[in-house]
Every structure is written in structure tokens, then in C-alpha cells.
């Protein structure tokens, strides 16, 4: 452990066989050299870092952060849009359904109204026909009654004539009428 350090030439730090004498770290002959190159190295690294590397990396990092933020915002926006589209679709579906129901109801109502009208018309016709028929029947009945009266008068006159009586037309008619009325009531 040799400790010769200061103020000696390089040869005192390195032995004749090329191996170190003591700690090369404490060979102060080499210090100026090391310090000079170290200062140069540090200055070069500092200049390179502060002028080129660090601004570039910080720009890249900022850009990436910005891109990520933008992408997230865009995704959020698209999500919102998708939601809106779905809502619009649901609304359209509901509207269509309501419309279909309305049209169905309308059609049904229209058909019902038509049907009612037709029904009414048919009823009226039926009623008219019935009335007509009744009238015809009444007429037929009336005419039949008249015929019966006539036949009865004639028969009564003939019978009275056959019985030998003088048949007074008016009396016979009155009698037949009375008789018919009594029968009828």
C-alpha cells in the first residue's frame, strides 16, 4: 500500500512492471486530465440534452398526452352520438308503432262507419219494403173484404130472391155490413 500521491510524475504512480502503485484514484498527476475531459463531456452532454434531446422528448410526451386526451374526447363524443342515434331510432320506432295503431284504428272506424251506414240503409230498405208489403197486404185484405161484402150481398140477395122475397138492395147491404162488422169485432 504505497501512498505517494502528490507532486510526482506519472511513473511514480505506475511501477516499472506496468502495475499501479497504490490507488490510481489518488494519483493527482492524472487529475487535470480527468477533470478537463470530464468538464468537456458534461458540457457536451448538457448542451445536447438541453438543446435537442429534452425539448424533443417533452414535445413528444406532450403530443402523446394531447393525442390521448383528444382520442378519449372523440370516443366520448362518438359514444354520445351513438346514444343519440339509438334514442332517435327508438323514437322513430315508437312513432311508427303509434302511427300504425292510429291508421289501424282509423281504418277500423271508417269500416265501422261504412258498415253502420250500410246497415242503416239496409234497415231502412227493409223497413220500406216491409211497409210496402204490409200496405199491399192491407190492400189485398181490404179488397178481399170488399169482395167478401160483394159476394155476401150477392149471395144474400140471391138467397133472399130464392126464398121468394123481394130483395131490397139497400137493406141487404146494411144487414150484411152489420153482420160483417159484428163478426169482425
Amino acid at each position, binding site marked *: *500500500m*504505497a501512498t505517494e500521491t502528490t507532486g510526482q*510524475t*506519472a511513473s511514480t*504512480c*505506475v*511501477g516499472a*512492471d*506496468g*502495475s*499501479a*502503485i*497504490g*490507488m*490510481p*484514484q*489518488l*494519483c493527482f*498527476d*492524472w*487529475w*487535470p*486530465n*480527468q*477533470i*478537463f*475531459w*470530464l*468538464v*468537456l*463531456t*458534461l458540457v*457536451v*452532454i*448538457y448542451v*445536447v*440534452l*438541453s438543446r*435537442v*434531446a*429534452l425539448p*424533443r*422528448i*417533452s*414535445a*413528444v*410526451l406532450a*403530443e*402523446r398526452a394531447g*393525442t390521448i386526451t383528444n382520442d378519449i374526447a372523440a370516443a366520448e363524443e362518438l359514444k354520445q352520438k351513438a346514444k343519440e342515434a339509438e334514442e332517435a331510432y327508438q323514437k322513430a320506432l315508437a312513432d311508427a308503432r303509434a302511427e300504425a295503431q292510429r291508421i289501424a284504428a282509423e281504418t277500423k272506424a271508417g269500416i265501422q262507419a261504412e258498415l253502420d251506414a250500410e246497415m242503416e240503409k239496409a234497415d231502412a230498405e227493409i223497413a220500406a219494403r216491409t211497409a210496402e208489403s204490409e200496405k199491399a197486404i192491407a190492400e189485398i185484405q181490404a179488397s178481399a173484404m170488399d169482395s167478401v161484402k160483394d159476394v155476401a150481398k150477392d149471395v144474400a140477395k140471391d138467397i133472399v130472391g130464392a126464398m121468394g122475397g123481394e130483395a131490397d138492395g139497400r137493406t141487404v147491404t146494411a144487414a150484411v155490413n152489420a153482420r160483417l162488422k159484428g163478426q169482425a169485432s
Partner: protein
Amino acid sequence: MATETTGEESSLVFHPMDQFIVEPLFGNGPVSWYTPTNVTLWMALAVIGVILLLVLGTSRRAIVPNRTQSIAELAYGFVYKMVEDVAGKDAVGFFPYIMTLFMFIVFANFLGLVPTAFTTTSHFAVTVLLALAVFLTVTIVGFVKNGTKFLGLFWVESAPLLLRPILAVIEIISYFVRPVSHSIRLAGNLMAGHAVIKVFAGFAAIALVSPLSVLAITAMYGLEVLVAFIQAYVFTILTCVYLKDALHPSH
């Protein structure tokens, strides 16, 4: 520790400190301050490494980074967060300086792990300069930003009045010991690790012990990989802590 050659085993020669010798790259002359030496070479490699990683690695400026850019961004985020969390938001202005320290130390440490490499950060000349630079920066910043209030760092307001002068002495001593511990911690760790590996390697000359020796070297190497990063991290985080003291001197 220079040449420990035992009598009966002349093959067993330890030169664990030879790896730290500074020698000129060209020729065999004396080492003056401007001579290109192995220090120059390995520091230049560190600079090239930093440029490859942080400049060329990020040249694509991709939003989706490739591997190299990821590592560069990771390093950036790691140191930036450290500065912000430990030293405070107003210390962000010192970020390029601290990043420079961290990148240099990390690259120098890892390049030193390349077999036959020269480890620049195992030299006190390097670490003392780094630590002194931090110490001076912190002290100057402390006085410029806080004026005489910076001295409040040594005057513990929360302690009883009687104890304060004693504490002040302790605080002042600890403040001035900072650069010493700061520099010796880094250089000492690296030097010790590399020297131990070299000693184990020396034992590999004995056939009987060599498997164990190789195993020990492997284990030490793994440990040294950890140490290389941890020491860079420790140096950087301590710089941040000292910077925090300078910016916010209250206890």
C-alpha cells in the same frame, strides 16, 4: 496492494488496481491535462451512448414509440419525476443539469462493466468534481434565492434555544461533509466492485478454485449491474435532496 506475489504460488498475481490506471491513448508519454487518454475514450463513449439513446433514439418523434424511444422517454420521466417529487416543482429549471448528471453517471457505470473497460466514475477526480459542482450549485442557489434566510438551514427553529448552537455546528459540519460523502460513495462503490471482481479473477489461475472463482465473478457482476444503476440513482436523488434544501431551507 500493488504486486502481491506469494512465494510458492508465483502464478497467483493480483493487480486489482491496474484497471484504474490512466494512460495515453497514443504513445507512452506523460499524461498532461489535454492528453487524449483512456478517460477521454470512455467518456466519449458515454457521450455517444447518451446521444444514441436520447437524440437518435427519439429522432422519429413517434406517438407510438419504438423500443429505444421508450427507454429514452422512461429515463426522461424517471429523472423528471424525481426532480419534481424530491426537489419540488420550482426545481424543474434544474432538470437538464440533473438529467446530465444522471445520464453521464449511468452510462459511465454501465460502460465500465464492459470487460477490459475503463470506469471513469470509479475515479475520485471525476466524482469529486461532480459532487463539488452540485455542492457549489446548491450553495449559490440557496443564497441567491433565499439570501441570508438560507442560513436558517443551520439554525433549527424547532429545537430548544439551548441546543440550537450545538445543532448549528452539527448541521454545518454535515453540510460540508456532503460533497465528500457524495463523491466517495459513488467512486468507492464502483472501485470496490471492480477491484473485487479482479481479485476473484486472479484466483481463477488455480485450477482447483477456478470454478468457484468464475461463479463468484458472475455473482459479483450481477451485483455490480445493480450497483451501477443504484449508485447513479443515489447520486441523482441526493442532488435533488440538496437542491430542495437550497430552494426551501426551512426544516
